[in-house]
């Protein structure tokens, strides 16, 4: 037991219990339409002293709370559950609260931008409405017919397992806004909507698969997926997004043939 104790303090090591600190430069893409910069986006650089357990969100908070109160971003739970703080960190979509600074090579400036493909409102805040509109279009709710059962619906553990992966989605938009197809004109439904359709299409209790497949058969639906795997890589919940999209495609082909 005690042997593992020494190792188990990886987050707060060294004999004195001091967490190692380091200097890091954060480059944030700013967009403040009300300021003198007007409609021009620009880069701001901040030099900070941070600690080994700090995340990108901590760095942003440090900037906002101690340096520049106008820096604007969304955040809530701060541990990767609410999906508020998806942003482009060093060119990759991630959640700021799940990305440790020490994992990002603090020797180089860390660039932070808003997620791409959605209209920027201010700094790192984007308009999520188009994203949620796509989500709503795929009918993300259980569709059944007939009377409600008097107890629960029966579903085997295997049937439940079938769609387990896609129930993890937190609607952070990291996947959709990492998709090059979505960047073009924002008309593509996007991975998140398809993942949430998948969650119901493969739920044994659901009877709305046909309607959802119909929606996603649209020219802006699953067929625009180019399997670049950006979405799978971006997903902070580890959902195999591209695989889910492929499964939806297969379901459509099975239905058509």
């Amino acid at each position, binding site marked *: 037991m005690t042997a593992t104790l020494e190792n*188990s*303090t990886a987050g707060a090591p060294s004999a004195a219990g001091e967490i190692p600190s380091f200097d890091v430069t954060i480059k944030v893409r700013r967009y403040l339409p*009300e300021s003198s910069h007007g409609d021009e986006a620009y880069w701001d650089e901040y030099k900070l002293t941070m600690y080994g357990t700090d995340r990108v969100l901590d760095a942003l908070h440090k900037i906002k709370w101690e340096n520049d109160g106008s820096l604007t971003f969304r955040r809530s*739970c701060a*541990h990767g559950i609410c999906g508020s703080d998806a942003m482009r960190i060093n060119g990759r979509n991630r959640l700021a609260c799940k990305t*440790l600074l020490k994992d990002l090579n603090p020797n180089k400036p860390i660039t932070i931008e808003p997620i791409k493909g959605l209209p920027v409102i201010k700094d790192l805040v984007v308009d999520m409405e188009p994203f949620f509109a796509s989500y709503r279009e795929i009918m993300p709710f259980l569709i059944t017919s007939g009377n409600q059962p008097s107890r629960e619906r*029966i579903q085997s553990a295997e049937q439940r397992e079938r769609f387990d992966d896609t129930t993890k989605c937190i609607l952070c938009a990291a996947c959709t806004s990492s998709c090059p197809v979505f960047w073009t004109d924002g008309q593509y439904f996007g991975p998140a909507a398809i993942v949430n359709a998948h969650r119901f299409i493969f739920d044994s209790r659901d009877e709305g698969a046909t309607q959802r497949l119909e929606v996603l058969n649209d020219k802006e639906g699953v067929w625009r997926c180019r399997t670049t795997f950006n979405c799978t890589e971006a997903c902070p919940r580890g959902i195999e997004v591209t695989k889910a999209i492929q499964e939806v495609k297969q379901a459509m082909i099975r239905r058509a043939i």
Partner: protein
Amino acid sequence: MQFHQYDVVIVGAGGAGMRAALEASSEARTAVISKLYPTRSHTGAAQGGMCAALANVEEDNWEWHTFDTVKGGDYLVDQDAAEIMAKEAIDAVLDLERMGLPFNRTPEGKIDQRRFGGHTRNHGEAAVRRACYAADRTGHMILQTLYQNCVKQDVEFFNEFYVLDLIVDHDLSAGHVPDGEEVNATGVVAYDLATGEIHVFQAKSIVFATGGAGKIFKTTSNAHTLTGDGMALALRRGLPLEDMEFFQFHPTGLAGLGILLSEAARGEGGILRNSNGERFMERYAPTIKDLAPRDIVARSMANEVREGRGAGPNKDYVLLDLTHLEPAHIDAKLPDITEFARTYLGIEPYTEPVPVYPTAHYAMGGIPTNVTAEVLRNSDDVVKGLYAAGEVACVSVHGSNRLGTNSLLDINVFGKRAGRAAAAYAKTAEFKDLPENAAERTIAQLEELRTRPDGERVSDVRKALQETMDANAQVFRTQESLEQCLADIRVLQERYKNVSVQDKGKMFNTDLLEALELGFLLDIAEVTVIAALNRKESRGGHFREDYPDRDDANYMRHTMVYRRPLEGAEGNHESVEADITPDTAFAHVSEFDTYKVVIGSKPVVQTRYEPMERKY
């Protein structure tokens, strides 16, 4: 400024708010105002499960559940409310399943259930499998399922709107309104974050479901946005807050970070150990050990650390040991929390124990309501058209300590009740006129804050508040520490008057909102500490080292705190007192420079269970 009129306005789009919205929107014209997108709410962070005596895996019934809830709450639970909750729990779970929630399943395909802290068979014999769950993201699935059904029902949301004022047709804040007089809630004033515009909502019924106030503490499992907005608004408008001294500290927060590791980890067999590798809970709760209620486990952990048996270089945490569990079992039942340990502490839970320490988790107290979720303005009278549900409310089903899983139950049972009651009332009621200047106070407050010259930083004041709360009002409290804390808060209240914001813009001004939220936090922290000072006993989540025993003779009552103006000394002194049940134990008044906080009390409803000593 924009004006809206709805039959029902629901403030907050977490579990309770959306559950209420599902009920209300099919009956009445309903709007949901939320400061976050609904799926960002902190209900989603709940992990372990939702208890209901379905008896899917072993014998169980709702009466045992009621008993556990009452005992877990150290008998400060209103037993009629607990009984309602335990009974309606079964339908609440089945409702969610029918809405599509993907519960884990038994081999027969029914909803699976697992053990959870404080939930026992036959009045404490042994731990029982009562918690229905979806891996370790039950709250996430509840939040998603409720939102999905709101999409289905086309519920109207006002996302990223902050409610900054509650409009009531009588000024309750002075304490002039005599008992029995009809008081109506008529609307709310909200601030559109995106544009900075003020919106006034007139409504027949208003449901508060704004959640908790965990950010008064530094180490907390709560989201940055849980700043007690609803509670503070109620307090400022003259409504009481009930049982604010009872704050739950969840035993297993990731050490140093406060991020929640579900009790399900212990429900699935995880064991707490001190630096000697000893399973110390055997000493504190010999029967159910690691699955004792949270207050007991949290205190035991803090005690181990205090007595020098903490682990780590600073001996400041204990260890949650999952290493004896099969990795496959951990992956199937606890995938998310093991990932937290890996991401944030770089610890592999398959092979290493996880450092944990209590983290501020849940406010048992809140806006007092009756069992139909109507808000009380003293121990008896309701405010017509005003409802509260979820963590912001105090029914009180949690008493002095909430059992694990009962919060998810609370939001579903009382969220549903609030939604139904609000819609039913809206059908019978007429719109009451709003005052001409309904939004004036809010606009003035915002303008003043936005234009205030450079002064204190929001973050400095907030940090100081959180630090003093952690140091002085956490798991162990004394008269001295609480007085210190209150003195600190008074200084901070003064400093708050000079707080300024850097962002002077209208659009998406989160700087401004953090300043407003800090005001809410200070008010909530203040009444929490005053209520804690007044309760000179130890019960549930409130542990006074100078009064380590439960004192049923004097303190078997709910605390009610009111905020009243100072000048009420002569003319309205009596009416102030009239609001409050006279009782020597609850006659404390704390005076500040512009207002005073008055303590009152409310009786505890007892039906079946006589208070006993709480042993596990």
